[in-house]
């Protein structure tokens, strides 16, 4: 099987119930150039290790920030609600 993600509303649920929203990045500020925005949109750190990332839980329609080790799929700590 895949792995489980603890949803703050629904408890431990299969990752297939979620939509992956990519790693947490720093959004460019106002006045940032097109190049900076494109870097923000398209480029990733794509870390093989622990990172913060966005997940959307379809059943309860909630975006959460999960800390996960991408090398093992282990979720670290409890997710933050946004």
């Amino acid at each position, binding site marked *: 099987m*895949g792995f489980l993600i603890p949803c703050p509303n629904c408890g431990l649920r299969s990752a*297939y119930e979620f939509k992956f929203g990519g790693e947490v990045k720093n959004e460019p500020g106002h006045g940032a150039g097109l190049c900076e925005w494109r*870097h923000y949109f398209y*480029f*990733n750190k*794509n870390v*093989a290790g622990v990172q913060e990332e966005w997940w959307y839980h379809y059943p309860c329609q909630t975006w959460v920030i999960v800390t996960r080790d*991408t090398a093992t*799929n282990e979720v670290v700590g409890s997710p933050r609600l946004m």
Partner: protein
Amino acid sequence: MGRKSPLWKFTEPRGTYDVVVIGGGLHGLAAAYYLAKDQKVKRVAVLERKHFGYGGSSRNTEVYRVNQRAPEILPLYLLSRNLWLELSAELEWNLMVWEKGMIGLAHSDAGLNAIRMRHETQTRMGIENYMLTPEELKKLVPALDVSDKAAIPIVGGYFNPPGGQVRHDAAVWGFLKGCYKEGVDLCPGTEVTGINVTDGKVTGVDTNKGSISCAAVHMAPGGYSSEVARLAHLDLPVMTMPLQAMVTECVKPFLDHVVVSEGYFCYVQQSIKGDLIMGAHLDPWQSYKLYNTYEFAQEQAYCMLQLFPDIAHLRLMRSWSGLCDMTVDGAPIMGATEVENLFIDAGWGYFGFKSSPACGKTMAQFIASGQCPELINFLGIDRFYEGRMIPEVYMVRT
């Protein structure tokens, strides 16, 4: 009778090279082979962290084809297909190439339109392709269910002759043999831990077996591309995702083509040995873990039975997964980087196998001459900053 001399020998890396290739998969081995053979570069090494062909080169489904969507990239795939056909003779090693042809299936008017558009593109570029009705499909692939019993019935399809299968391990072994013959140093168990850059120019690499100085470095690390590029402080526009595939037990030959369903997003082919190689499922999240899920096997089996109801009793023998570094536009990243003499061939996602000989050949040309070949000069990393995306599409289920 036993063979007297080995086909290749591995070696420890030396202190200096002209070109160091990071990654001992098909892309890296092909680049090293063509650097030595075509470009006459004397001192080339391939550094592989694990063993040769550990990554995507042995985790694919052995398909090559030339019917992608974006017209600009088709000549590269055509070159690759032609090289696959020639390489067995050139390497004196049977790659077991079987040009059986692709059968594509459409399950809706929209799907049929997409196929028709690709048909026009290919026909204009001189690539043989035929549009087929469900009745014609049934004649070519008798096991196919073209009735309206399936959840999403087949409404049409295509037959694309220049596609098929290459035995992937044979390809790795063939390139190892070729590299060894051309004097390339093959170094397994050699992990690159740093890429050294001085004044914006690459000067060498650090490895677990010591430092190596070299004039150029070529990164061909497959799914691990971001981790390798980070050694030179480069970010890549990719996300690494795990792809799963599986095979059934062997049965008598009944399937003479690679069959791709563009409605169920799955494909299947029967190998020479008789097993059905089927895939693929891309888990829609970033992960470097190699794992298989029950959900995949269940969904894959369901899709297969919608197409071929008669295979219902077949047992699954194995499933496996590989890492795919997916770009946002579905096209690869090939060419130079902002660091002088540091080259990259990455972002191949789940479709890197088919293109490996052509990528090796064109990258070798680029690295040796400094002139980017026309076949790949639009695939550079700068396109993401310039907004020059390539209209390729992903074809696997997520």
